[in-house]
Protein backbone atom coordinates (compact mmCIF):
# COMPACT_ATOMS: atom_id res chain seq x y z
CA UNK A 1 0.00 0.00 0.00
CA UNK A 2 1.41 3.35 -1.01
CA UNK A 3 1.33 5.73 1.94
CA UNK A 4 2.04 9.05 0.40
CA UNK A 5 0.20 12.31 0.78
CA UNK A 6 0.14 13.39 -2.84
CA UNK A 7 -0.72 9.89 -4.09
CA UNK A 8 -3.70 9.62 -1.75
CA UNK A 9 -4.96 13.09 -2.61
CA UNK A 10 -4.61 12.31 -6.31
CA UNK A 11 -6.50 9.03 -5.94
CA UNK A 12 -9.29 10.76 -4.02
CA UNK A 13 -9.55 13.47 -6.71
CA UNK A 14 -9.75 10.92 -9.50
CA UNK A 15 -12.20 8.70 -7.62
CA UNK A 16 -14.50 11.69 -7.26
CA UNK A 17 -14.19 12.26 -11.00
CA UNK A 18 -15.00 8.62 -11.74
CA UNK A 19 -17.99 8.82 -9.42
CA UNK A 20 -19.26 11.91 -11.27
CA UNK A 21 -18.68 10.12 -14.55
CA UNK A 22 -20.82 7.15 -13.53
CA UNK A 23 -23.64 8.64 -11.46
CA UNK A 24 -23.38 12.26 -12.66
CA UNK A 25 -25.83 12.00 -15.57
CA UNK A 26 -28.53 10.71 -13.18
CA UNK A 27 -28.22 13.50 -10.60
CA UNK A 28 -31.37 15.63 -10.19
CA UNK A 29 -29.78 18.94 -11.22
CA UNK A 30 -28.21 17.50 -14.37
CA UNK A 31 -30.16 17.40 -17.60
CA UNK A 32 -30.69 13.89 -19.00
CA UNK A 33 -30.53 15.16 -22.56
CA UNK A 34 -28.61 18.27 -23.50
CA UNK A 35 -31.10 20.84 -24.79
CA UNK A 36 -30.53 24.15 -26.46
CA UNK A 37 -32.31 27.22 -25.24
CA UNK A 38 -31.25 30.42 -26.94
CA UNK A 39 -34.01 32.73 -25.70
CA UNK A 40 -35.58 33.18 -22.32
CA UNK A 41 -38.50 35.40 -21.43
CA UNK A 42 -37.95 37.40 -18.30
CA UNK A 43 -39.93 40.19 -16.62
CA UNK A 44 -38.33 42.88 -18.69
CA UNK A 45 -38.35 41.30 -22.12
CA UNK A 46 -36.14 38.70 -23.73
CA UNK A 47 -32.75 37.45 -22.68
CA UNK A 48 -30.41 35.86 -25.15
CA UNK A 49 -27.93 33.07 -24.46
CA UNK A 50 -25.26 32.83 -23.08
CA UNK A 51 -26.79 33.10 -19.63
CA UNK A 52 -24.46 33.77 -16.68
CA UNK A 53 -24.26 31.37 -13.74
CA UNK A 54 -27.49 31.34 -11.76
CA UNK A 55 -29.35 28.99 -9.47
CA UNK A 56 -30.86 27.32 -12.51
CA UNK A 57 -27.53 26.94 -14.32
CA UNK A 58 -24.79 26.82 -11.65
CA UNK A 59 -22.03 27.09 -14.28
CA UNK A 60 -24.03 29.26 -16.70
CA UNK A 61 -24.78 28.28 -20.26
CA UNK A 62 -22.87 28.46 -23.50
CA UNK A 63 -23.89 30.61 -26.44
CA UNK A 64 -26.39 27.99 -27.58
CA UNK A 65 -28.03 28.03 -24.16
CA UNK A 66 -26.85 24.57 -23.15
CA UNK A 67 -26.32 24.06 -19.43
CA UNK A 68 -22.54 23.96 -18.89
CA UNK A 69 -22.65 21.84 -15.74
CA UNK A 70 -24.60 19.13 -17.55
CA UNK A 71 -22.29 19.40 -20.57
CA UNK A 72 -19.20 18.96 -18.42
CA UNK A 73 -20.67 15.97 -16.59
CA UNK A 74 -21.84 14.33 -19.79
CA UNK A 75 -18.48 15.05 -21.42
CA UNK A 76 -16.33 13.57 -18.67
CA UNK A 77 -16.59 10.02 -20.00
CA UNK A 78 -15.55 10.94 -23.55
CA UNK A 79 -12.69 13.10 -22.33
CA UNK A 80 -11.18 10.51 -20.04
CA UNK A 81 -11.65 7.79 -22.65
CA UNK A 82 -9.84 9.77 -25.35
CA UNK A 83 -6.98 10.76 -23.04
CA UNK A 84 -6.55 7.22 -21.77
CA UNK A 85 -6.57 5.77 -25.28
CA UNK A 86 -3.98 8.27 -26.59
CA UNK A 87 -1.64 7.64 -23.67
CA UNK A 88 -2.08 3.85 -23.86
CA UNK A 89 -1.25 3.77 -27.57
CA UNK A 90 1.73 6.04 -26.95
CA UNK A 91 3.15 3.70 -24.31
CA UNK A 92 2.37 0.54 -26.24
CA UNK A 93 4.67 1.85 -28.98
CA UNK A 94 7.19 3.71 -26.86
CA UNK A 95 8.04 1.00 -24.31
CA UNK A 96 9.02 -1.73 -26.83
CA UNK A 97 10.88 0.87 -28.87
CA UNK A 98 12.83 2.00 -25.82
CA UNK A 99 13.69 -1.59 -24.89
CA UNK A 100 14.86 -2.32 -28.43
CA UNK A 101 16.91 0.88 -28.51
CA UNK A 102 18.90 0.23 -25.33
CA UNK A 103 21.58 -1.27 -27.54
CA UNK A 104 22.72 1.94 -29.22
CA UNK A 105 24.06 0.12 -32.25
CA UNK A 106 20.68 -1.21 -33.28
CA UNK A 107 18.61 0.55 -35.97
CA UNK A 108 15.85 1.07 -33.40
CA UNK A 109 18.09 3.54 -31.62
CA UNK A 110 18.25 5.64 -34.78
CA UNK A 111 14.50 5.44 -35.26
CA UNK A 112 13.92 6.48 -31.68
CA UNK A 113 16.36 9.36 -31.53
CA UNK A 114 15.27 10.64 -34.95
CA UNK A 115 11.65 10.51 -33.86
CA UNK A 116 12.51 12.34 -30.66
CA UNK A 117 14.52 15.03 -32.41
CA UNK A 118 11.97 15.75 -35.13
CA UNK A 119 9.06 16.23 -32.79
CA UNK A 120 11.01 17.93 -30.03
CA UNK A 121 12.21 20.66 -32.38
CA UNK A 122 8.85 22.40 -32.11
CA UNK A 123 6.13 22.45 -29.44
CA UNK A 124 3.86 19.37 -29.66
CA UNK A 125 0.80 21.58 -30.08
CA UNK A 126 2.37 22.93 -33.27
CA UNK A 127 2.95 19.50 -34.81
CA UNK A 128 -0.53 18.45 -33.74
CA UNK A 129 -2.18 21.40 -35.50
CA UNK A 130 -0.21 20.85 -38.71
CA UNK A 131 -0.84 17.11 -38.88
CA UNK A 132 -4.52 17.27 -37.93
CA UNK A 133 -5.04 19.75 -40.74
CA UNK A 134 -4.06 17.33 -43.50
CA UNK A 135 -7.20 16.83 -45.67
CA UNK A 136 -7.12 13.05 -45.26
CA UNK A 137 -8.09 13.48 -41.64
CA UNK A 138 -10.29 16.58 -41.72
CA UNK A 139 -13.63 14.94 -42.41
CA UNK A 140 -12.57 11.35 -42.52
CA UNK A 141 -15.00 8.75 -41.18
CA UNK A 142 -12.16 7.56 -39.01
CA UNK A 143 -11.12 11.01 -37.82
CA UNK A 144 -11.34 10.11 -34.14
CA UNK A 145 -9.01 7.14 -34.59
CA UNK A 146 -6.65 9.06 -36.89
CA UNK A 147 -6.39 11.97 -34.47
CA UNK A 148 -5.85 9.71 -31.50
CA UNK A 149 -3.02 7.98 -33.33
CA UNK A 150 -1.46 11.30 -34.43
CA UNK A 151 -1.56 12.69 -30.90
CA UNK A 152 -0.19 9.45 -29.50
CA UNK A 153 2.67 9.24 -31.98
CA UNK A 154 3.82 12.86 -31.73
CA UNK A 155 5.39 12.19 -28.34
CA UNK A 156 6.38 8.53 -28.70
CA UNK A 157 9.95 9.67 -29.36
CA UNK A 158 10.17 11.73 -26.20
CA UNK A 159 8.76 9.03 -23.91
CA UNK A 160 10.88 6.38 -25.55
CA UNK A 161 14.00 8.51 -25.15
CA UNK A 162 13.41 9.04 -21.42
CA UNK A 163 12.95 5.30 -20.86
CA UNK A 164 15.88 4.35 -23.08
CA UNK A 165 18.20 6.67 -21.15
CA UNK A 166 17.14 5.03 -17.94
CA UNK A 167 17.62 1.54 -19.37
CA UNK A 168 21.01 2.58 -20.66
CA UNK A 169 21.91 3.57 -17.10
CA UNK A 170 21.61 -0.01 -15.85
CA UNK A 171 22.97 -1.67 -19.01
CA UNK A 172 26.45 -1.95 -17.50
CA UNK A 173 25.40 -2.97 -14.02
CA UNK A 174 26.48 -6.32 -12.69
CA UNK A 175 23.15 -8.10 -12.65
CA UNK A 176 22.55 -7.31 -16.33
CA UNK A 177 26.01 -8.61 -17.20
CA UNK A 178 25.22 -11.70 -15.19
CA UNK A 179 22.06 -12.07 -17.22
CA UNK A 180 24.09 -11.94 -20.43
CA UNK A 181 26.58 -14.49 -19.08
CA UNK A 182 23.97 -17.08 -18.24
CA UNK A 183 22.78 -16.95 -21.83
CA UNK A 184 19.73 -14.73 -22.07
CA UNK A 185 18.86 -13.71 -25.60
CA UNK A 186 18.38 -9.95 -26.18
CA UNK A 187 14.59 -10.45 -26.06
CA UNK A 188 14.73 -12.30 -22.77
CA UNK A 189 17.12 -9.69 -21.45
CA UNK A 190 14.70 -6.91 -22.32
CA UNK A 191 11.76 -8.73 -20.83
CA UNK A 192 13.36 -10.15 -17.68
CA UNK A 193 15.96 -7.55 -16.80
CA UNK A 194 15.23 -4.15 -18.29
CA UNK A 195 11.43 -4.10 -18.16
CA UNK A 196 11.17 -4.74 -14.39
CA UNK A 197 13.74 -1.99 -13.73
CA UNK A 198 11.88 0.44 -15.93
CA UNK A 199 8.39 -0.34 -14.59
CA UNK A 200 8.40 2.30 -11.84
CA UNK A 201 9.43 5.04 -14.21
CA UNK A 202 6.94 3.81 -16.83
CA UNK A 203 4.20 4.13 -14.22
CA UNK A 204 5.33 7.60 -13.11
CA UNK A 205 5.66 8.90 -16.65
CA UNK A 206 2.35 7.35 -17.66
CA UNK A 207 0.45 9.44 -15.15
CA UNK A 208 2.24 12.66 -15.94
CA UNK A 209 1.63 11.94 -19.64
CA UNK A 210 -2.10 11.54 -18.99
CA UNK A 211 -1.96 15.11 -17.72
CA UNK A 212 0.09 16.29 -20.68
CA UNK A 213 -2.28 14.71 -23.19
CA UNK A 214 -5.28 16.30 -21.51
CA UNK A 215 -3.55 19.70 -21.64
CA UNK A 216 -2.72 19.14 -25.30
CA UNK A 217 -6.28 18.34 -26.35
CA UNK A 218 -7.45 21.26 -24.24
CA UNK A 219 -5.10 23.55 -26.17
CA UNK A 220 -6.39 22.14 -29.44
CA UNK A 221 -9.90 22.84 -28.21
CA UNK A 222 -9.02 26.47 -27.47
CA UNK A 223 -7.78 26.76 -31.05
CA UNK A 224 -11.17 25.32 -32.18
CA UNK A 225 -9.57 22.19 -33.57
CA UNK A 226 -11.85 19.41 -32.49
CA UNK A 227 -11.04 15.78 -32.12
CA UNK A 228 -14.47 14.63 -33.15
CA UNK A 229 -16.01 16.72 -35.82
CA UNK A 230 -18.32 16.56 -38.75
CA UNK A 231 -19.88 19.17 -40.95
CA UNK A 232 -23.53 19.66 -41.58
CA UNK A 233 -25.11 21.49 -44.43
CA UNK A 234 -27.15 24.41 -43.17
CA UNK A 235 -28.46 25.68 -46.49
CA UNK A 236 -27.76 25.76 -50.19
CA UNK A 237 -24.01 25.91 -50.45
CA UNK A 238 -22.87 26.51 -46.91
CA UNK A 239 -22.48 24.56 -43.76
CA UNK A 240 -20.82 24.49 -40.39
CA UNK A 241 -18.22 22.31 -38.74
CA UNK A 242 -19.67 20.85 -35.58
CA UNK A 243 -18.19 18.65 -32.97
CA UNK A 244 -19.99 15.44 -32.34
CA UNK A 245 -19.07 14.82 -28.75
CA UNK A 246 -19.31 16.76 -25.52
CA UNK A 247 -15.70 16.21 -24.50
CA UNK A 248 -14.27 19.12 -22.51
CA UNK A 249 -11.81 20.24 -25.15
CA UNK A 250 -14.61 21.00 -27.59
CA UNK A 251 -16.37 23.14 -24.97
CA UNK A 252 -13.29 25.39 -25.04
CA UNK A 253 -13.85 26.17 -28.71
CA UNK A 254 -15.60 29.44 -27.89
CA UNK A 255 -12.81 30.65 -25.62
CA UNK A 256 -11.49 33.39 -27.83
CA UNK A 257 -14.82 34.97 -28.69
CA UNK A 258 -16.28 34.75 -25.22
CA UNK A 259 -13.25 35.48 -23.06
CA UNK A 260 -14.07 39.17 -22.72
CA UNK A 261 -17.86 39.01 -22.57
CA UNK A 262 -18.81 35.64 -21.07
CA UNK A 263 -15.78 34.35 -19.22
CA UNK A 264 -17.71 31.54 -17.56
CA UNK A 265 -17.98 29.63 -20.86
CA UNK A 266 -14.27 28.81 -21.11
CA UNK A 267 -13.68 29.03 -17.35
CA UNK A 268 -15.60 25.97 -16.19
CA UNK A 269 -14.43 23.46 -18.82
CA UNK A 270 -10.87 24.73 -18.25
CA UNK A 271 -11.39 24.28 -14.52
CA UNK A 272 -12.54 20.69 -15.07
CA UNK A 273 -9.47 19.99 -17.19
CA UNK A 274 -7.17 21.56 -14.61
CA UNK A 275 -8.74 19.55 -11.80
CA UNK A 276 -8.16 16.31 -13.69
CA UNK A 277 -4.62 17.21 -14.72
CA UNK A 278 -3.72 18.02 -11.12
CA UNK A 279 -5.18 14.67 -10.09
CA UNK A 280 -3.00 12.83 -12.63
CA UNK A 281 0.09 14.81 -11.63
CA UNK A 282 -0.43 14.14 -7.93
CA UNK A 283 -0.64 10.41 -8.56
CA UNK A 284 2.47 10.57 -10.75
CA UNK A 285 4.42 12.54 -8.16
CA UNK A 286 3.20 10.28 -5.37
CA UNK A 287 4.42 7.23 -7.30
CA UNK A 288 7.74 8.94 -7.97
CA UNK A 289 8.23 9.71 -4.28
CA UNK A 290 7.18 6.16 -3.43
CA UNK A 291 9.67 4.54 -5.80
CA UNK A 292 12.50 6.92 -4.87
CA UNK A 293 12.32 6.14 -1.17
Amino acid at each position, binding site marked *: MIKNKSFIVGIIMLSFLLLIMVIGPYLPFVEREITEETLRISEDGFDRAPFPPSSENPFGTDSKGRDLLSLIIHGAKDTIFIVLLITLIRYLVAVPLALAAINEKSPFYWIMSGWNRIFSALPPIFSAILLM*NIPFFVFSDHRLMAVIIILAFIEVGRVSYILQQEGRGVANSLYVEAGITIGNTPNQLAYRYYLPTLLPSIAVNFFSDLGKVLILIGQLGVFSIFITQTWIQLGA*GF*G*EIQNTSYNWATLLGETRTSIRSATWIPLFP*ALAITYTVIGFYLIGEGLRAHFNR
Partner: protein
Amino acid sequence: MHVMIKIGKYTLIYTAIIFMLILIILFPRDAQMIQVNGVMEYHYQFSWETYYESVSSYFNNIVENKSLGGTRNHFTVEEILAIFLPRSLKVIVTAFIISLFFGILKGILDFRHSQKKSNVIGNGTTFLFQAIPDFFLIIIILLLVISFFPFIPIFAQGVWYEFLIPSLLVTILPLMYVARITSSAVASQEGLQYIVVAKAKGLSNKMVLYKHVLKNCYSTIFSHCSSLTIYIISNLLMVEYLLSYQGAAFRLFQAIDYRNSVSVGRRSNFEPELIIAIAVSFMLIIMISQIISEVATDSLDPRRREKR
Protein backbone atom coordinates in the same frame (compact mmCIF):
# COMPACT_ATOMS: atom_id res chain seq x y z
CA MET B 1 36.54 23.89 -31.20
CA HIS B 2 34.27 21.77 -29.07
CA VAL B 3 31.51 24.32 -29.48
CA MET B 4 32.02 24.53 -33.25
CA ILE B 5 31.52 20.77 -33.68
CA LYS B 6 28.35 20.91 -31.64
CA ILE B 7 27.03 23.84 -33.68
CA GLY B 8 27.80 21.95 -36.89
CA LYS B 9 25.95 18.90 -35.59
CA TYR B 10 22.91 20.93 -34.63
CA THR B 11 22.88 22.64 -38.03
CA LEU B 12 22.86 19.27 -39.76
CA ILE B 13 20.05 17.90 -37.61
CA TYR B 14 17.97 21.02 -37.98
CA THR B 15 18.39 21.06 -41.77
CA ALA B 16 16.97 17.56 -41.89
CA ILE B 17 14.09 18.55 -39.62
CA ILE B 18 13.32 21.67 -41.65
CA PHE B 19 13.19 19.56 -44.79
CA MET B 20 10.70 17.18 -43.18
CA LEU B 21 8.66 20.12 -41.99
CA ILE B 22 8.53 21.54 -45.51
CA LEU B 23 7.34 18.18 -46.81
CA ILE B 24 4.55 18.06 -44.23
CA ILE B 25 3.42 21.63 -44.77
CA LEU B 26 3.49 21.46 -48.56
CA PHE B 27 1.32 18.36 -48.50
CA PRO B 28 -1.47 19.16 -50.99
CA ARG B 29 -4.42 20.59 -49.11
CA ASP B 30 -6.62 21.91 -51.87
CA ALA B 31 -9.74 20.14 -50.68
CA GLN B 32 -12.96 21.62 -51.94
CA MET B 33 -16.61 21.62 -51.22
CA ILE B 34 -18.59 20.90 -54.32
CA GLN B 35 -22.30 20.92 -54.76
CA VAL B 36 -23.99 17.97 -56.42
CA ASN B 37 -27.75 18.39 -56.91
CA GLY B 38 -27.92 20.81 -54.00
CA VAL B 39 -26.04 18.51 -51.64
CA MET B 40 -22.56 19.51 -50.58
CA GLU B 41 -19.76 17.01 -50.82
CA TYR B 42 -16.28 17.20 -49.47
CA HIS B 43 -13.95 16.55 -52.33
CA TYR B 44 -10.29 15.80 -52.05
CA GLN B 45 -7.98 14.01 -54.39
CA PHE B 46 -4.39 13.33 -53.62
CA SER B 47 -1.87 13.00 -56.39
CA TRP B 48 1.88 12.62 -56.19
CA GLU B 49 2.29 14.94 -59.17
CA THR B 50 0.78 17.98 -57.46
CA TYR B 51 2.78 17.16 -54.36
CA TYR B 52 6.02 16.98 -56.30
CA GLU B 53 5.11 20.13 -58.20
CA SER B 54 4.45 22.19 -55.09
CA VAL B 55 7.67 21.07 -53.43
CA SER B 56 9.81 21.70 -56.50
CA SER B 57 8.20 25.06 -57.22
CA TYR B 58 8.81 26.11 -53.63
CA PHE B 59 12.52 25.43 -53.93
CA ASN B 60 12.68 26.88 -57.45
CA ASN B 61 11.15 30.07 -56.17
CA ILE B 62 13.79 30.32 -53.46
CA VAL B 63 16.66 29.69 -55.85
CA GLU B 64 15.48 31.73 -58.82
CA ASN B 65 13.56 34.62 -57.31
CA LYS B 66 15.44 34.69 -54.01
CA SER B 67 12.06 34.92 -52.34
CA LEU B 68 10.36 32.79 -49.74
CA GLY B 69 7.03 33.10 -51.52
CA GLY B 70 3.87 35.17 -51.38
CA THR B 71 0.93 35.50 -49.03
CA ARG B 72 -2.78 36.06 -49.49
CA ASN B 73 -2.62 39.85 -49.51
CA HIS B 74 0.20 40.24 -52.02
CA PHE B 75 2.90 40.87 -49.46
CA THR B 76 5.93 38.64 -49.71
CA VAL B 77 6.70 36.31 -46.83
CA GLU B 78 9.76 38.39 -45.93
CA GLU B 79 7.69 41.54 -45.55
CA ILE B 80 5.18 39.77 -43.33
CA LEU B 81 7.97 38.31 -41.21
CA ALA B 82 9.56 41.76 -40.83
CA ILE B 83 6.28 43.08 -39.41
CA PHE B 84 5.18 40.22 -37.18
CA LEU B 85 8.34 38.45 -36.05
CA PRO B 86 9.91 41.33 -34.05
CA ARG B 87 6.76 41.56 -31.92
CA SER B 88 7.08 37.89 -30.98
CA LEU B 89 10.84 38.11 -30.56
CA LYS B 90 10.47 40.85 -27.96
CA VAL B 91 8.14 38.61 -25.97
CA ILE B 92 10.34 35.53 -26.32
CA VAL B 93 13.56 37.28 -25.31
CA THR B 94 11.95 39.06 -22.35
CA ALA B 95 10.27 35.85 -21.21
CA PHE B 96 13.50 33.87 -21.62
CA ILE B 97 15.58 36.25 -19.53
CA ILE B 98 12.99 36.72 -16.79
CA SER B 99 12.15 33.04 -16.49
CA LEU B 100 15.80 31.97 -16.39
CA PHE B 101 16.88 34.58 -13.84
CA PHE B 102 13.90 34.48 -11.51
CA GLY B 103 13.42 30.76 -12.09
CA ILE B 104 16.88 30.01 -10.71
CA LEU B 105 16.25 32.36 -7.78
CA LYS B 106 12.92 30.73 -7.03
CA GLY B 107 14.49 27.29 -7.36
CA ILE B 108 17.07 28.17 -4.71
CA LEU B 109 14.35 29.58 -2.48
CA ASP B 110 12.31 26.41 -2.95
CA PHE B 111 15.31 24.31 -2.02
CA ARG B 112 16.09 26.29 1.12
CA HIS B 113 12.44 26.20 2.05
CA SER B 114 12.26 22.45 1.55
CA GLN B 115 15.21 22.00 3.90
CA LYS B 116 13.32 23.60 6.74
CA LYS B 117 10.22 21.46 6.43
CA SER B 118 10.33 17.88 5.30
CA ASN B 119 8.39 18.26 2.11
CA VAL B 120 8.01 15.36 -0.32
CA ILE B 121 7.09 17.21 -3.48
CA GLY B 122 9.23 20.29 -3.00
CA ASN B 123 7.57 23.62 -2.87
CA GLY B 124 3.82 23.43 -3.33
CA THR B 125 3.43 26.46 -5.57
CA THR B 126 6.12 25.35 -7.99
CA PHE B 127 4.61 21.92 -8.16
CA LEU B 128 1.08 23.17 -8.65
CA PHE B 129 2.03 25.45 -11.53
CA GLN B 130 3.55 22.47 -13.34
CA ALA B 131 0.13 20.89 -13.58
CA ILE B 132 -1.84 23.95 -14.62
CA PRO B 133 -2.71 24.21 -18.32
CA ASP B 134 -1.58 27.47 -19.91
CA PHE B 135 -5.04 28.36 -21.16
CA PHE B 136 -6.53 28.01 -17.69
CA LEU B 137 -3.90 30.33 -16.24
CA ILE B 138 -4.54 32.94 -18.92
CA ILE B 139 -8.32 32.72 -18.54
CA ILE B 140 -8.02 33.16 -14.76
CA ILE B 141 -5.65 36.10 -15.09
CA LEU B 142 -7.82 37.78 -17.70
CA LEU B 143 -10.87 37.27 -15.50
CA LEU B 144 -9.07 38.81 -12.51
CA VAL B 145 -7.75 41.74 -14.50
CA ILE B 146 -11.06 42.48 -16.19
CA SER B 147 -13.07 42.35 -13.00
CA PHE B 148 -10.67 43.79 -10.41
CA PHE B 149 -7.94 45.75 -12.19
CA PRO B 150 -9.63 47.17 -15.28
CA PHE B 151 -6.99 49.91 -15.51
CA ILE B 152 -4.32 47.40 -16.59
CA PRO B 153 -4.07 47.72 -20.40
CA ILE B 154 -4.07 43.99 -21.03
CA PHE B 155 -5.24 44.22 -24.64
CA ALA B 156 -3.06 47.25 -25.46
CA GLN B 157 -1.80 47.32 -29.04
CA GLY B 158 0.34 49.78 -30.91
CA VAL B 159 2.08 51.24 -27.87
CA TRP B 160 5.72 50.65 -27.02
CA TYR B 161 4.93 48.61 -23.91
CA GLU B 162 2.50 46.31 -25.75
CA PHE B 163 4.86 43.35 -25.38
CA LEU B 164 5.18 43.60 -21.59
CA ILE B 165 1.92 42.01 -20.50
CA PRO B 166 2.11 39.14 -23.02
CA SER B 167 5.70 38.58 -21.87
CA LEU B 168 4.65 38.35 -18.25
CA LEU B 169 1.82 35.95 -19.11
CA VAL B 170 4.18 33.82 -21.18
CA THR B 171 6.79 33.81 -18.38
CA ILE B 172 4.83 32.33 -15.49
CA LEU B 173 4.83 28.62 -16.40
CA PRO B 174 8.39 28.48 -17.84
CA LEU B 175 9.63 30.23 -14.70
CA MET B 176 8.17 27.46 -12.57
CA TYR B 177 9.80 24.92 -14.89
CA VAL B 178 13.23 26.48 -14.34
CA ALA B 179 12.58 26.68 -10.60
CA ARG B 180 11.81 22.99 -10.51
CA ILE B 181 14.93 22.02 -12.43
CA THR B 182 17.09 24.26 -10.27
CA SER B 183 15.78 23.00 -6.96
CA SER B 184 16.15 19.37 -7.99
CA ALA B 185 19.66 20.02 -9.34
CA VAL B 186 20.66 21.70 -6.09
CA ALA B 187 19.07 18.91 -4.08
CA SER B 188 21.00 16.27 -6.03
CA GLN B 189 24.30 17.79 -4.84
CA GLU B 190 23.35 17.45 -1.21
CA GLY B 191 25.76 15.50 0.95
CA LEU B 192 28.51 15.37 -1.69
CA GLN B 193 32.05 15.53 -0.37
CA TYR B 194 33.01 18.92 -1.74
CA ILE B 195 30.10 20.45 0.16
CA VAL B 196 31.13 18.74 3.34
CA VAL B 197 34.68 20.04 2.83
CA ALA B 198 33.48 23.57 2.13
CA LYS B 199 31.32 23.51 5.23
CA ALA B 200 34.20 22.08 7.28
CA LYS B 201 36.29 25.04 6.24
CA GLY B 202 33.73 27.18 7.98
CA LEU B 203 31.89 28.71 5.04
CA SER B 204 28.34 29.77 5.72
CA ASN B 205 25.50 27.81 4.15
CA LYS B 206 24.68 30.71 1.87
CA MET B 207 28.26 30.94 0.67
CA VAL B 208 28.40 27.19 -0.06
CA LEU B 209 25.12 27.35 -1.93
CA TYR B 210 25.93 30.30 -4.18
CA LYS B 211 29.66 29.84 -4.68
CA HIS B 212 29.96 26.07 -4.81
CA VAL B 213 26.69 24.25 -5.37
CA LEU B 214 25.14 26.60 -7.88
CA LYS B 215 28.25 26.57 -10.06
CA ASN B 216 27.96 22.81 -10.33
CA CYS B 217 24.30 23.08 -11.21
CA TYR B 218 24.62 25.52 -14.09
CA SER B 219 25.35 22.81 -16.63
CA THR B 220 22.21 20.90 -15.63
CA ILE B 221 20.07 24.02 -15.66
CA PHE B 222 21.38 25.34 -18.95
CA SER B 223 21.03 21.96 -20.63
CA HIS B 224 17.27 22.58 -20.41
CA CYS B 225 17.50 25.86 -22.34
CA SER B 226 15.96 24.48 -25.52
CA SER B 227 13.08 22.84 -23.62
CA LEU B 228 12.60 26.17 -21.90
CA THR B 229 12.41 27.97 -25.24
CA ILE B 230 9.98 25.37 -26.61
CA TYR B 231 7.87 25.85 -23.50
CA ILE B 232 7.94 29.62 -23.98
CA ILE B 233 6.94 29.35 -27.65
CA SER B 234 4.17 26.93 -26.82
CA ASN B 235 2.84 29.43 -24.29
CA LEU B 236 3.32 32.22 -26.79
CA LEU B 237 0.94 30.51 -29.25
CA MET B 238 -1.76 30.53 -26.60
CA VAL B 239 -1.14 34.06 -25.31
CA GLU B 240 -1.01 35.66 -28.75
CA TYR B 241 -4.12 33.81 -29.82
CA LEU B 242 -6.19 34.70 -26.76
CA LEU B 243 -4.98 38.29 -26.40
CA SER B 244 -5.01 38.87 -30.17
CA TYR B 245 -1.44 40.11 -29.83
CA GLN B 246 -0.34 40.63 -33.42
CA GLY B 247 2.83 38.56 -33.36
CA ALA B 248 4.20 35.77 -35.53
CA ALA B 249 2.21 33.09 -33.70
CA PHE B 250 -1.00 35.03 -34.23
CA ARG B 251 -0.21 35.39 -37.93
CA LEU B 252 0.54 31.67 -38.03
CA PHE B 253 -3.02 30.86 -37.03
CA GLN B 254 -4.31 33.12 -39.77
CA ALA B 255 -2.03 31.34 -42.20
CA ILE B 256 -3.30 27.92 -41.15
CA ASP B 257 -6.78 29.27 -41.83
CA TYR B 258 -8.83 27.03 -39.67
CA ARG B 259 -12.45 28.04 -39.59
CA ASN B 260 -15.73 26.68 -38.45
CA SER B 261 -17.79 27.29 -41.53
CA VAL B 262 -17.65 25.48 -44.82
CA SER B 263 -19.04 26.82 -48.04
CA VAL B 264 -19.12 25.77 -51.63
CA GLY B 265 -16.34 27.07 -53.82
CA ARG B 266 -14.40 28.80 -51.09
CA ARG B 267 -10.81 27.83 -51.45
CA SER B 268 -8.73 27.53 -48.35
CA ASN B 269 -6.47 30.49 -47.60
CA PHE B 270 -3.79 28.14 -46.34
CA GLU B 271 -0.47 29.91 -46.83
CA PRO B 272 2.16 27.16 -46.84
CA GLU B 273 5.15 29.42 -47.59
CA LEU B 274 4.36 31.68 -44.65
CA ILE B 275 3.78 28.74 -42.31
CA ILE B 276 7.15 27.28 -43.29
CA ALA B 277 8.86 30.62 -42.72
CA ILE B 278 7.32 31.17 -39.29
CA ALA B 279 7.93 27.59 -38.20
CA VAL B 280 11.54 27.77 -39.32
CA SER B 281 12.02 31.10 -37.51
CA PHE B 282 10.72 29.55 -34.30
CA MET B 283 13.01 26.61 -34.85
CA LEU B 284 15.98 28.90 -35.38
CA ILE B 285 15.16 30.64 -32.10
CA ILE B 286 15.16 27.25 -30.38
CA MET B 287 18.47 26.39 -32.06
CA ILE B 288 20.02 29.70 -30.97
CA SER B 289 18.89 29.02 -27.42
CA GLN B 290 20.62 25.66 -27.63
CA ILE B 291 23.83 27.32 -28.76
CA ILE B 292 23.52 29.89 -25.97
CA SER B 293 23.16 27.05 -23.49
CA GLU B 294 26.30 25.36 -24.86
CA VAL B 295 28.33 28.55 -24.65
CA ALA B 296 26.95 29.42 -21.22
CA THR B 297 27.71 25.97 -19.82
CA ASP B 298 31.19 26.16 -21.27
CA SER B 299 32.00 29.41 -19.57
CA LEU B 300 30.10 28.82 -16.32
CA ASP B 301 31.01 25.21 -15.56
CA PRO B 302 34.44 25.24 -13.89
CA ARG B 303 35.34 21.74 -15.11
CA ARG B 304 34.61 22.50 -18.74
CA ARG B 305 36.53 25.78 -18.49
CA GLU B 306 39.53 23.88 -17.26
CA LYS B 307 39.42 21.46 -20.19
CA ARG B 308 39.86 24.19 -22.78
